[in-house]
């Protein structure tokens, strides 16, 4: 491969564009941090420089509830706080449960659609595909009612119920990959007398690690970022997830002005898990997205 390494003007411009893109991607996050360490009372005057005049950690402290209400109010907040570690735990439970269970069950379903023969298969699959086209809000309203009728508002089961067992997308996505596995592999195992379950667990799943991981990561990111559903069904203190907590923290701003420094401190905290993910799983993450790009 002979790549052109001569520093032409074109290459310089191209690199400049690429670096600009990285700066645009990251600068807002820097600005968030810069605002988060600005004293709330000074924000109206001190909001332009690259660093605040009097950096402080008070906003993080008051968002985490480490200072009293009056002190928090003096620093520009309403005294509202984020029970960060509780909400983090809730987010982890919500995301973890859905990602693991849904991916697994949908793998089973996708396999059945790809390989097993049974009456009504195509009709059923057609129904799933049709469901793919339906915007989620259409089922969200009745699902909210259902969860309410079951008395599951503000519970974990209410939070995870609609997407724990399946999404049509996951089934559809995995079926595509199972279709691509050569039948001979399974035939050999079948002849050896292995049952469908054994084949699925021992042969098929290990062969589809890639797509499974891609799907799981995507599901995890979607679930982690989900806002409307958790806000509707589980806004209660005990089951509140991070995204809903941020939305509620915004609502609990002081009556006359949003508490920008506190909000940015809360936002910065909510980004920490994401950044950890990038630091530790950067390659996995990038690979798995590119994977869907290659198979798309």
């Amino acid at each position, binding site marked *: 491969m002979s790549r052109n390494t001569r520093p032409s003007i074109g290459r310089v411009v191209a690199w400049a564009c690429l670096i600009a893109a990285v700066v645009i991607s990251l600068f807002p996050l820097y600005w968030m941090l810069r605002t988060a360490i600005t004293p709330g*009372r000074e*924000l*109206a*005057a001190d909001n332009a420089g690259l660093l605040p005049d009097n950096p402080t950690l008070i906003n993080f402290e008051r968002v985490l509830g480490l200072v009293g*209400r*009056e002190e928090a*109010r003096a620093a520009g907040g*309403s*005294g*509202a706080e984020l029970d960060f570690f509780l909400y983090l*735990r*809730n987010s982890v*439970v919500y995301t*973890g*449960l859905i990602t*693991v*269970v849904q991916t*697994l069950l949908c793998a089973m379903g996708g396999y059945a659609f790809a390989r097993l023969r049974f009456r009504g298969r195509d009709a059923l699959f057609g129904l799933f595909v049709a469901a793919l086209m339906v915007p989620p809000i259409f089922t969200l309203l009745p699902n909210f009612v259902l969860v*309410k009728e079951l008395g599951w*508002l*503000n519970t*974990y089961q209410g939070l995870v119920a609609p997407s724990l067992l399946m999404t049509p997308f996951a089934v559809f996505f995995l079926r595509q990959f199972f279709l691509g596995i050569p039948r001979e592999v399974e035939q050999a195992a079948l002849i050896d007398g292995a049952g469908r379950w054994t084949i699925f*667990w021992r042969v098929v799943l290990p062969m589809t690690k890639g797509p499974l991981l891609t799907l799981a990561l995507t599901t995890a990111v979607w679930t982690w970022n989900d806002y409307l559903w958790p806000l*509707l*069904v589980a*806004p*209660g203190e*005990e089951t509140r997830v991070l995204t809903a907590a941020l939305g509620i923290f*915004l*609502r*609990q*701003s*002081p*009556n*006359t*002005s*949003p508490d*920008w420094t506190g909000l940015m401190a809360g936002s910065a905290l909510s980004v920490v898990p994401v950044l950890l993910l990038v630091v530790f799983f950067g390659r996995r993450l990038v690979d798995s997205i590119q994977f869907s790009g290659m198979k798309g």
Partner: protein
Amino acid sequence: MMKKAFMAATAVLLTASCGGGGAGDGSVTLTYSLWDDAQQGAYQQCADAFQKANPGIRIKIDQHAWDEYWQNLTTRMVSGDAPDVITMQASYYPQFVKNGQLLDIQPMVQAEKVDLSQYWPGLAELWVKDGKRYGLPKDWDTIAIVYNVDLVKKAGVDLSDLTWNPRDGGSFEKALARLTVDTEGRRGDEPGFDKDNVAVRGIVPELNDGSQGQNGWGDLAVSNGFTFIDKNPFGTRYFYDDPRLAETVTWFKSLSDKGYATPYDKNSSLGPDAVLNSGKAALGITGSWMIKTYLDSTEQKFAFAPLPKGPQGRKSAFNGLADVIYSGTEHKDAAWKWVKFLGSAECQNIVADSAVVFPAITSATERALAAHEAAGRDVRLFVDQAKDPEGTFLLPVSDHGDEINQIVGTAMEEVWLGQKDATSALTAANRQVNALFAGE
């Protein structure tokens, strides 16, 4: 193997998720919602006193800013999970009554002989509909001008007895012009004034003010002869198409065209108090619940002046809040106890002493005034305005408050943004508003 590990993980997650059960010691926790964080401290003191007297009941205060308060409340009612006791504004409560979300407290008020004559005249009756009573008054408020003392002194204007009319804005507009300073130091009434480069605005108008304009256009419109509704409370026909409202609104819009106010779409998300605190504007129109926020400011020295006199005299909105009980509460008795306490002299005196708002009980009002004066805050004009029999009007109370708020709020936005003139926007809005009542 993998399956087992997975099951184990699920089990761990599930047990983790089931932590934190009920209290189980027979005690009751009431959630009490309010929007003004500035008042939270005073009501926390009330809650402390109440909890001491009622050891079995705990009060949890839930604060949501005004802009989010009502949406939050309706969503939680739909979930069947609203706060047990709710701070309520009169124009919003009818829609909740209509949907059966508020508890009728008339039987309790009667049985326990709550003295309704202790409140400011007119406040308790606002909360009665069709013989049912939904709330006990907690406070009242009137409106005045708040100004930056230094900036006003520098401009040499006198705000103590302003006049206003929608044609030329009277001495009010002259004062605003004088108070506005461009980046070259020229004032708004001086030759060469550059309205596109203004350093200090004459006024920060509260334009995003729903269907009532309590902090500005509503008061001036009424002083111009405008009436909101055919009957208050519970009228069924609004008059938003009244030309006297349109002229008032047009005048407000002209302030930003002349440079005396920031154009509507270029306002910061920070509220008027933050803008005034930064010294970038000279005055605003505000309510008595903001007294402490302004007078205790460490950045600027503020003082209050009465609203300008319009063609029909000086008119301030007179509004009262009340505490109401959510009909879905599981603790009706405890909730009533708390509401009764909130409406009692004991709690209202606590509120008076902390001087954040004027309590609804007449005697407590005097006490609040005394507390203010002891702290060197001159706020008598709010009380004088309230006592003036011709000086106040009640904000309109009717069904569909929420929808009216949205319809009129949007129409006003169209005017502030210059998309429509006031007459056509308000006429269209009024048609929509009255159509809400026609459908019944």
